[in-house]
C-alpha cells in the first residue's frame, strides 16, 4: 500500500542540490516532459517508465492540481513491461521456424535468421498482449526535502533516481544509517571517530565457543 491508503512500506531519500525556490512554478513543464509514454510493440525496449497521476496511473496528462498538494509533490512512478509468457513464445517461435524452413526449403536456420525471427514473433505477440502495469507512489515534502518512495525494491529506487534527476535536476540521497548519521551534524571530533568506527559486539571473549 502507498501514500494514500493502507499501511505504509517505503524507502526514504533526501533531496539535495540546487532546489528551486518555487518548485510548483518551475517544474511542471519538466514533469510533463517526463510523463509516462505508452510502450510500442515495435520498439526494442521491453519496459518503459515515467510519471503518472498518483491517484490514477492511467492518467498521464499531469497538471498543477494533480501533482502539487500544498507542500507536497505527489507523483506515481509508472512502470510498464511487456511480459510474453515463455511457453507461448516458444510455441509461436517453433511454428514460425517451421513455416520459414518450409518456405525456403531449408533444413535449419542460421543464428541471425533465428534472432530476426524471434524479434518478429515477439513483436507480433506484443500486439496481442497488454503490457503489465505497476505504479509506485512518490511523495516529496518541499518543506523538509524528505522524499518517500513507496517501494523497497532497489530496482525501483534506481529507476526513481534516474527519472527524478532527469526531471528536477537535483540529487537524491538514500536514507541509510551512514547518511542519517552525517545529517546529525557531526563536529570535528565526532567526524573523526565516525570515520574510524568499527562494529560493536555484545559478545565477551569468554562467549566464544
Amino acid at each position, binding site marked *: 500500500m502507498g501514500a*494514500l491508503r493502507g499501511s505504509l512500506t517505503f524507502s526514504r531519500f533526501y533531496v539535495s542540490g540546487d532546489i528551486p525556490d518555487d518548485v510548483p512554478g518551475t517544474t511542471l513543464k519538466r514533469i510533463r516532459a517526463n510523463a509516462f509514454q505508452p510502450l510500442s510493440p515495435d520498439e526494442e525496449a521491453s519496459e518503459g517508465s515515467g510519471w503518472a497521476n498518483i491517484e490514477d496511473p492511467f492518467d498521464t496528462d499531469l497538471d498543477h492540481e494533480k501533482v502539487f*498538494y500544498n507542500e507536497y509533490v505527489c507523483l506515481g512512478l509508472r512502470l510498464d513491461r511487456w511480459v510474453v509468457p515463455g511457453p507461448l513464445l516458444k510455441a509461436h517461435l517453433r511454428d514460425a521456424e517451421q513455416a520459414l524452413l518450409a518456405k525456403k526449403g531449408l533444413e535449419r536456420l542460421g543464428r541471425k535468421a533465428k534472432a530476426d525471427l524471434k524479434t518478429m514473433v515477439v513483436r507480433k505477440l506484443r500486439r496481442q498482449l497488454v503490457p503489465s502495469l505497476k505504479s509506485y507512489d512518490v511523495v516529496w515534502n518541499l518543506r523538509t526535502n524528505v522524499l518517500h518512495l513507496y517501494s523497497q525494491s532497489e530496482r525501483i529506487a534506481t529507476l526513481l533516481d534516474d527519472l527524478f534527476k532527469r526531471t528536477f535536476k537535483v540529487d537524491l540521497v538514500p536514507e541509510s544509517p551512514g547518511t542519517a*548519521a552525517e545529517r546529525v551534524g557531526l563536529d570535528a571530533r565526532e567526524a573523526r571517530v565516525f570515520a574510524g568506527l568499527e562494529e560493536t559486539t555484545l559478545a565477551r571473549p569468554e562467549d566464544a565457543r
Partner: protein
Amino acid sequence: MELLDLIEGRRFLGREFVVWLWFESELSETNLEPSGVDPVSMWLEAQITLVLEKEESRLKGAIPASRPEAKEALRQGKLPKEAKMRLVRGDREYVWTLKADSLALSGLKLPTQLKKNDEKHEVFYERMMLLEDLETTLEALFADFVRVRLSDVWDDEVLPMMKSWAHGEKVEAEAYLAAKRVVLGDRRKRRR
C-alpha cells in the same frame, strides 16, 4: 567519505541502533526521552531477526526480545537486522517493522482518525502529518544514539552496560542515564 562508502560501510550502525533502542526500552521500562521532542513509550514486539554474518535467529511471540534466546543471540555476537516496534505518544500509537541496515520502515500502521470516505486531500495530509511526527521522533532517537556512540562514554560506560544487560546481569538505570547525560545533557538544554 564517499557516498557509497558512507552507505555500505556504515550499515552496521543501524543494527547497533536497534539493539540500543531495545536496551534503552528495557532499562527504562519503555519510557524513552529523545532530545528535543516529546517523551514516548516504545518497545520491540512480535518479531525480531538477529544476524551474525550468515547465521540468523528469527524469534516470534508477544515480546520475543524478552525471551532468553534473544539475549543468547546477542551473546553470540548477533545483532538485530529487523524488528517489529510499537511506539505510543499521547493517544497516538504506531506499529511498524524497522529494517536496520537501511532504517527503512515497512507495514507501518498510522493512528489515523479520518476514514477513506472523508475528503481525499484531508486524508492524505493527516497521513503525512502522522508519518512526519513519527519520523521526527525516530530521527531524534537516532541522533541521540549517534552522539552517544561517537563519544568516549560509549566504550567506557555504555557498551560495558549493554554487555552486562545481554548477559543477564543487573544494570542500574540511573547509572546509564547519568552516563548519557554527560553526552546529551548540554545539547538537550540547548535544544529546549
